[in-house]
């Protein structure tokens, strides 16, 4: 039993060392040229910004009281918004992926609307809903709760724009995983909530993580809806993007330094999301099955006959 298993891993690592033979790709050269232009279009501006960084003053610039306030506020609100996205988005994704009802397509389009809506419009919508004279805000105001232009408003604005990212990535993963494992769980006697907790969520955990990371990134970068709905009050509603925008007028060096901080955060976020996607148990199983199929015959014959005590 141990022998074929170790030889299998040995084979796999050898395959990793050997370079895959070059296959005919069939990519026209001009495609390559345009692709390079596109890549430069993304990379050069970043370089342009990095060149402008005042490295001597970098630390003092990003640790000034207003910068720290903005950074801290951004982190707090983005985390809160991400949590809210998970709490609201997981049930939404499950309902969209697992049930069928009249008007589902319309509902999905509406839920994903913030993805394509200009954030300012989102902010206006939120203002006329939760604002002091808004749809719900009036009753809330009577109850002594004022949301607009508070830190809560920042979180709501961020959640509004970030929610579709989580719903979208989780719904896709739920559809990919399918319902077969859930059906097996149910026939083994697991109630729907048990199936959700012990089968569905673990299977889509990587997508949930990457969706949450994307939501966090979107929340962190939120500008338009926040400015419209929450305003720009230092320490209360002035998040990092707002701070950068304001500083650009008075202290470009600070704006550039803080921008670099956001770029670094973004790079970390993207790589974490990518890693999470690769760690999917299903994908791992599929990969392993591919390997197993390759040397299945050998493994089956090397192992003691099925049924014999091993």
């Amino acid at each position: 039993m141990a022998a074929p298993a170790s030889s299998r891993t040995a084979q796999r690592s050898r395959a990793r060392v050997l370079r895959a033979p070059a296959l005919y790709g069939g990519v026209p050269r001009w495609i390559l040229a345009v692709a390079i232009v596109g890549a430069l279009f993304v990379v050069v501006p970043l370089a342009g910004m990095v060149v402008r960084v005042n490295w001597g003053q970098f630390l003092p610039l990003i640790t000034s009281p207003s910068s720290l306030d903005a950074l801290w506020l951004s982190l707090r609100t983005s985390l809160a918004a991400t949590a809210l996205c998970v709490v609201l988005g997981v049930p939404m994704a499950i309902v969209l992926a697992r049930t069928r009802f009249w008007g589902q397509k319309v509902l999905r389009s509406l839920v994903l609307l913030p993805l394509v809506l200009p954030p300012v419009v989102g902010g206006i919508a939120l203002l006329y809903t939760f604002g002091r004279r808004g749809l719900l805000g009036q009753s809330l105001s009577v109850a002594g709760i004022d949301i607009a232009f508070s830190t809560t408003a920042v979180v709501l604005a961020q959640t509004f724009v970030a929610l579709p990212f989580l719903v979208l990535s989780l719904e896709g993963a739920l559809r990919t995983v399918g319902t077969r494992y859930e059906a097996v769980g149910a026939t083994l006697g697991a109630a729907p909530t048990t199936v959700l907790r012990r089968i569905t969520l673990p299977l889509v955990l990587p997508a949930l993580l990457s969706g949450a990371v994307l939501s966090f990134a979107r929340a962190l970068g939120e500008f338009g809806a926040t400015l419209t709905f929450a305003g720009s009050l230092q320490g209360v509603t002035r998040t990092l993007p707002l701070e950068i925008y304001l500083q650009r007028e008075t202290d470009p060096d600070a704006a550039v330094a803080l921008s670099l901080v956001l770029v670094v955060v973004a790079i970390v976020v993207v790589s974490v999301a990518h890693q999470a996607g690769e760690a999917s148990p299903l994908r791992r199983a599929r990969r392993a099955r591919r390997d197993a199929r390759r040397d299945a015959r050998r493994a089956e014959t090397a192992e003691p006959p099925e049924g014999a005590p091993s």
Partner: protein
Amino acid sequence: MSLQFAGRVGARGFDVELELAEGETVAVLGPNGAGKSTLLGVLAGLLRPDSGRAVLNGERLFDIAGNGRGPWLPPHRRGISLLAQEALLFPHLTARENVAFGPRSRGRGKAASAALAEEWLAEVDAAALADRRPAELSGGQAQRIAVARALAAEPKLLLLDEPMAALDVAVAPALRRMLRRVLANRTTLIVTHDILDAFTLADRVVVMDGGRVVDAGPTRAVLDRPTNPFTAGLAALNLLTGRGGAAGELVTEGGLRLRATSETPLAPDARAAIAVRPAFVSVRVAPPASGAGLQVVPGTVLDLEPRGDVVRVRTELIAADLAPGEVAALDLAPGMAVWCGFAAEQALAYPL
């Protein structure tokens, strides 16, 4: 009766009634699309029938009237485990956690469930694999653990959906042996299109075609004495039908008079059949001399189909399995007139 079932699914043309005795293993045979998987889905609660009624051990599974309304138990409250072609082990759990899933879901403690899982893993000879993840198991190993997982849930009824179909031919016999051991005295419904499964595992068979039951009865009775061409095909037998003649022989619709062994002489003019294996049928290209004791069925070669080490020669009424050398020696080709023959001792005659 342990299970009484009647269900109809209009969209799939499915309309089946079925009963299972306590501890009985019944094989459901039939081609793809016969409705076998629909039957399992309706029983397991994964598919809601348009109408029907099912009772398992006195508990009502569903009772749906013609208007589609009525009580219907969700799958997790039925006590019916389903084992599919693929093992479908939960990829994020170890083998032990997979097997313990059923007991855990039914409210057993963590330690008790783990202990039960160990027991069932030992029962399927997979104790050494307890800590492996599904990705580290071969197809046969995974299927063994899936059997343990299905049984650890202590089902009142076990459903097996072609459990051997996705396995290597080298592994299937061992799993079949193991299943025979663990299925003894367990109420089980096994869907298969392999009659070997039916012979080794089942007390009774139900033959389905086009969403309906076309034949049912004890395994040997149904498969040794098929009553319709469809079951005969499954059992790989030639079926010649007709009526009893004056001297106990079978008279086919075409007027052929054929003899075969029979327990009771065929009653004159009653519907009867003869079953004979293609391997026992010989083929000649000229009419054989009469009185050789050979039962002769003349015909034309319709096609020649290589099947492993034999070639199946099909004619209008009967098929013969010949060695490739024989086919070559006779220079058989579609359209040729041939005379197929079999010995009366190697064929079975029975009333229909």
